[in-house]
């Protein structure tokens, strides 16, 4: 019986293989990971596969689309009227804000002319839709439906009406992939709205951003807003990033760790805006 079981349990179908092969395959896998990380070996083939997977995405999105269509069809007139009223009210508020902004803009132009300061470069905004899924096997993968044919460039900032949410890291002809600001690979030069101190903000794979080492003598407080500083020349100055949530001391050192809650995360959104450089 034991002999029979032993005969069935071959490590390899080909008996010439040895345990050494297993070690070699582990090393091969690790080498492939390293090479792919460094040289992006498989990006082209992965993009081709992504295109082939379009029917799969459509099948996944179909129930949600159907639910939305049905919900839109059966929406009551009363609800529509209520929504319309709220939107009209918002338009009035925005009109008022716009009047103030026009005045400030004129004043700004006048001041720039008198101080001989160059006009700020205007950014072109592209609106895009997030294609599901946003998370595959616990890994946040956010694909958007605009690519190089829509003038999306590598490194462009991605934001919505609440603030910055990430950066474009891969661009295809019709699709792009963005890295969320909370990713551990994300870093940005930032500034507070009050103290005007510059620092580097980074993601840490949690729902928060952080300043790893901030001097205890610094003027940052809980509740302060954090904005892009524009020093990196990637992101325009003044885009909202988040709010200071916590200030944590680091042992006995002269530094604190600052935790920042982003105003918006891509998981909550269906549409985003991209700043074309």
């Amino acid at each position, binding site marked *: 019986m034991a002999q029979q*079981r032993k005969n*069935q*349990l071959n*490590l*390899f*179908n*080909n008996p010439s*293989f040895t345990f050494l*092969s*297993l070690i070699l*395959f*582990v090393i*091969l*896998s*690790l*080498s*492939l*990971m390293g*090479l*792919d*990380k460094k040289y992006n*070996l*498989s990006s082209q*083939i*992965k993009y081709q*596969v*992504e295109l082939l*997977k379009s029917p*799969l*995405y459509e*099948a*996944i999105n179909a129930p949600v689309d159907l639910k939305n269509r049905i919900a839109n069809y059966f929406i009551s007139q009363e609800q529509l009227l209520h929504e319309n009223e709220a939107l009209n009210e918002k338009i009035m508020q925005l009109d008022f804000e716009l009047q103030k902004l026009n005045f400030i803009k004129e004043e700004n132009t006048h001041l720039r002319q008198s101080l001989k300061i160059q006009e700020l470069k205007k950014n072109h905004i592209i609106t895009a839709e997030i294609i*599901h*899924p*946003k*998370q*595959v*096997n*616990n*890994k*946040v*993968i956010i694909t958007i439906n605009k690519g190089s044919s829509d003038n999306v460039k590598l490194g462009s900032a991605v934001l919505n009406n609440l603030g910055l949410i990430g950066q474009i890291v891969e661009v295809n002809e019709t699709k792009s992939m963005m*890295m*969320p600001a*909370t*990713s*551990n*690979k994300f870093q940005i030069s930032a500034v507070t709205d009050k103290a005007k101190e510059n620092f580097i903000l980074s993601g840490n*794979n*949690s*729902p928060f951003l952080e300043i790893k080492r901030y001097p205890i003598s610094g003027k940052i407080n809980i509740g302060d807003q954090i904005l892009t500083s524009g020093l990196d020349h990637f992101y325009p100055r003044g885009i909202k990033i988040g709010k200071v949530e916590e200030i944590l001391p680091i042992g006995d050192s002269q530094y604190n760790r600052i935790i920042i809650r982003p105003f918006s995360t891509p*998981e909550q959104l269906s549409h985003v805006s991209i700043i074309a450089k």
Partner: protein
Amino acid sequence: MKKSIAELRRELLYLILFLLITLFLTHLNLEFFGIHDTSPEYFVSFIAVILTINLYRLDLIKVFLLGLIADILVFNLLGSYALIFVVVFGCNYLLHRIMSIGSNQQQLILLLCLIQVGFHLSYVTFFYHGDINYNFLTYLINNFLTTAVGIISFHILRYIKR
């Protein structure tokens, strides 16, 4: 006992179907217990189940290639799943050497061991290279869900294979 060609063909069909279902579930992005970031490691369950029930007499090269295919399909770093699959395959061999695996219960224990090895290795790999959000609660839930998916798939595949 050698498998006939017809049997191997049928098992290959099951393997492809199982792979496609795994791919679909991986992209489905279901939220469990109302907590964001909870998702089973479907591919870990997949490899653990097919090795436990010895589907299609997989050898090291086939397992490695399956891992590479999985990496490309889910847009992973090339070699991540290949590494996980190869290590799980090695563990399967070692456990067969030290344990007597014949009955249904023994196979279930083997399955649990393989899932745990694969799950922890995937967590280390993806946490180190990727963008997973480490949280102890989601880690526990994901581990539980991966095990549950593995056990359910094991019973379904065993039933179909019969």
